[in-house]
Each structure stands twice: as C-alpha cells, then as structure tokens.
C-alpha cells in the first residue's frame, strides 16, 4: 500500500491520545453519580486506540500496546462476575452490592461502592470486544 504522508495527523495524535485517554478515565469515574460509566468510558478508550490504528498500522500499534484483547475481555468478565458473585459468600441475592463512605487523608470524603469494580469489568470488556472486532476486520489487509 502506498504510504500516505499524514504528518499532521501523526503529530496531533501524539498529543490528543493522552487527552482522550484521560477524559475516558474521567468519564468512567464520573459514572459513579453522574452520566458516564464503564461502557462509554470503554468506548472512548477504544476510540483512542482506533485513532492510533488509523494513524499508524496494526504492527506499530501492537508494538506500542502489546495487549491481547481477548484476554482483556476475559479479565473484564472475571471482574464483573467476581463482584456480582461476591454476594454469594454473604448469602445475599446475586449482584447485591456493598457501599460506604471512607475518609481519606488529603482527598476527604470518598464514597466507595463495589459497583465501581463491576463497572471496571464492563470497561475492560468494552475495550476488549471493540478492539477484537476491529482487529479481526483490519488484520488481513
């Protein structure tokens, strides 16, 4: 394939990538009380990686991010199931979550909820699945 000269994109991506990644983390944590959460955060992260893929080729991106996305999906699922099944130990109905407030030095009051862990699982699953699909289509070009 002819190598196109996309120097502007390449330079811009190097900066933009971190903004997108950071914002996706923000969206993920915002999901605790406001709109946001694992699904949308995961999609955004996947979007960032796709941007990388568009700019460079698959080989370069796998060198930068040597992640097996199928395994990532499995890890995400494990998080989600693990958090949900935690309630089995306490003989509470499946998916029952625990929550509480913790006082942390410097950060102040922080509310902690096991649903966040579940959401983290969702985040991994979304990134993993989206990237697996895109890689499958893009791989053999």
């Amino acid at each position, binding site marked *: 394939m002819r190598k196109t000269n996309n120097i502007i994109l390449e330079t811009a991506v190097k900066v933009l990538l971190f903004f997108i990644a950071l914002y996706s983390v923000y969206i993920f944590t915002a999901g605790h009380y406001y709109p946001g959460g694992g699904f949308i955060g995961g999609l955004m992260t996947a979007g960032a990686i796709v941007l990388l893929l568009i700019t460079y080729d698959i080989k370069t991106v796998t060198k930068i991010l040597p992640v097996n996305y*199928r*395994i990532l*999906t*499995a890890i995400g*699922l*494990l998080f989600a*199931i693990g958090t949900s*099944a935690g*309630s*089995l130990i306490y*003989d*509470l*109905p*499946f*998916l*029952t*979550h625990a929550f509480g407030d913790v006082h942390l030095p410097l950060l102040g009051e922080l509310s902690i909820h096991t649903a966040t862990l579940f959401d983290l699982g969702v985040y991994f699953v979304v990134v993993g699945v989206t990237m697996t699909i895109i890689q499958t289509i893009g791989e053999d070009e």
Partner: protein
Amino acid sequence: MTNLIILPILIPLFTGVVLIFLNKRITGQRVVAIFSSIGTMIAAGVIVQKVRTDGIQSLNVSSWDAPFGITLVSDMFSALLVLITSIIAFACLIYSFKSIGQEREKYYYYAVFNFLLVGVNGAFTTGDIFNLFVFFEVMLMSSYVLLVLGGTKIQLRESIKYLLVNVISSALFVVAVAYLYSVVGTLNMAHISSRINEISVNGMPGILTVIAVLFLIVFGLKGAIFPLYFWMPGSYYAPPAPVLTLFGALLTKVGVYSITRTYTLFFYHDMDAFGILTILAILSIVFGVIGAIAYWDIKNIIIYNIIIAVGVILYGVSVLNTASLTGAVYYLIHDMLIKAALFLLVGIVITITGTSNLRNISGLITRYPGLGWTFFIAALALAGIPPLSGFVGKLLIVQGGFEGESFIGGFITLMSSLLVLFSVMKIFINGFWGKDRTYGGEEKAPVKQLLIAPAILVAISALYGIGSEFILPYISQAADTLLNPKLYIDAVLKE
C-alpha cells in the same frame, strides 16, 4: 441457600470466562468444562428437588424486591428444563471431545458452548420479560459463533441468513416488549400476568391480542413453527453434529418454552390467540411430516422431525387442560432427550460414511451393531412406541385434545406418530440393513467412544419412559403451575 437457582446460569458463565484464558491448553479446557458440566447438573438436580418439596423458588437479583428489580423464578417447568439442558450439554460435551477437532477447540469452542448454556438456562429461569430478551441474545450470539466456527463456505453462507432472521426477530421482540410495557407498565412476568388479569375482566383488549401474536411470531421464529421454520433446515444443516445437537435439542425448545410460558401466564384469557396457536401447531405437524417423509437426507429427516415435535407440544399447550399440558411438558422433555440422541447418532453415521445421503448408505449394522440398535431404540422412542418415553406424552396430549373436543388436532397428532415412525424407520431400513459397503472415513472414526454420549441419552430416555409412574408427579406439578397462573404470581410477588 438464597442463590441456589442462579447456579445453573452462574457456573457456565464463570466456566466460559475461565476457558478463554485456557484457549491453548486443550486438555485443561476439557477438564474444566466437564467438571463444570457435572456441577451444573448437580445444581439443577438439587433445584428440581427443592421445588418439589418447597414449591416455586424465586430470587430477587441485586436485592431489589419484585416487581421492581429483575426476578429469577424456578417453577417445576423451568427447573426440569434446566436439568435436561444440563444433561444434554454433558452428553454433547463428551461427544465433542472425540469429534469437534483441535482447530475449533483452540478457537474458544468450549467457552462459547458454555455461554450458550448461560443463555439457555437463563431464558428458562428468568421471571422478567426484558431479561428474557437479554438471555435470548446471549444465547443467539453464542449460537452465531458456534454456527460460523470453522468458517467453511456453507457455514458462512448459512450463518448470514440465520443471523438476519434472528436480528429481525429480536427487533420484533423489543417492539412486543415495548407495546406490552405501554399497556401494563411493568416487566415482571408475574406482575404482568396479574395486571392483564385486572384489565381483562370485561374481555381482553384488542391490543393484547396483537401483542400475543407478536410474541408468537418472535418465539415461533426461534421455535420453528409453521410458517416460520423456513430458515431452519438450511441453517441447521451447516454446523457439525454436536453443535447441531445443541441447536436442535435446546434452541428451538427455548422458543417453545417461551411460547408456553407467555401464553399460559399472560394470554390465557385470549381465546383468539389460542385459536391461532392451535392452527399453527397443527399445520407445523402436517408440514413437518411432509418434509420428514420427502427427504432422503438423514440430517434433513431429523431436522423436519423437530418441526413435528414442536407442533405436537404446542398443540398440547394450546388445548390448555390438565391432561394436554401434562402431556406437553412430558413430551417436551422426552423430545429434547431423544432429539439430542438422534442428532448425535446421525453425526456418527456421517462420520463413518462421510455422507448424509441415505441412498449412499447401507448395511451399517453388520459392522456397527451397537450403533444400529441404539438408533433403533431411539427411533422407536421418537415415534412413541410403548413403553418408551414418547408414548406417555403423546397419549396425554391426544387424551387432552379429545377432552377439549379438538378432534382434528388429536387425530392429526395420532397420525403423525405413524409417519414419524415411517420416516425414522426409513433411515434404519435403508441405512443399517442391506448390503455392507466400505466408506472413506471409516478407519479414523472412533465409533465406540462417540457412541457413549447418545447411549447415555437413550438410556435416560428409556428410563424416563419406563419410570413414568415415578416421574409423573413432577410433571403434573409443572403442568399445575402452568394452568394456575395464581400459583406463579403468589410465589413471585409474595402477596
């Protein structure tokens, strides 16, 4: 233990995830899969016993009380189906070890297999109509993957059609749920039932009939009733035997289960909808029989037999009296077991001969007597020869049909038994008797090991028929709940 009824969903789910990590280690995958399958079977057995002694079990997931949260409900009907599903899954699993091939095993075959079970068991257990949709999708997604795994031309081609049909039916499912929600304002199945009961005092509103027909279309597409079975012979023809077994024995039955559940729980006031169901059920029997007799391809003969069985079961449901419902539940379980066994046996025949065309097969019984006689018993059971398991179910359905003064349906059901017997005996006489031939794939085929799984299923089915005296109380309990929605509602809403 509060969470007992979720175990048949949770164990395969967890196993599926673990198996993704093990994708390169085939032996490890097999060990994990077999242990989890046994675990699921035990859990399902315990649930059946628990429902038998303590009545309907329900679990409010995430501690949200019904009808606000999602509720899982195990009554005898769903508990029995979950148990049978686990048994069939176990048989398919040990059959897969010898037949599916390393390529598929490395490509997450066992993981997807377990996700399929999550969907099937979930659909049987859930007590929430939207959650049913979600479990349907889990099941369908896994079935897409299983269908396409291997990537031969015919598989790709058929997967596209199968996927398109199911995408459309899923969209219709969402539409039906949306309509239902606009009428009753709830998604909990027990709550829907009691609300519909309230608004139907002066006859059922017309929109509910529309919803009933929409549900019939959606589930009928999955369950392959007339005229919605058009996709099935093509799509089910493509995958290898164990996958075909899972599809034929489980997926269509999920559709049948859903029709039974929604019609007996929601629409029991609606005689119009039941009239449509009766007609479609009878037509399914007729068209299924025509297909089963006409084909000379062993896979197709058995596939068309699915349609006949679906028709018979739904006919039993549509008559809606004690005898017919007991018969329908009994026959449903019988059919799952025996169809699974037949598909696996057909798979062995195809492995030996390398063809599914009956004209090119003959004389198998001289060198494979075990295979031949297992097939013979399975064929007799399918047709309903006493004392095998098909007999009791069909007898009760026909009895119920005559009690309900639906003579045509009862008569057609009876006649269909004869023609079913003819269609499977055609396989037996042409394929197993006659001149012995040599085939290409013979040396490789580990027939003895492959025969274990169908032999187990046939044995269970025979016991199921002979021990019907012992089993009938369970079945009648299931039919009781279907006939009295009040039992289901009270158990879920705990009023």
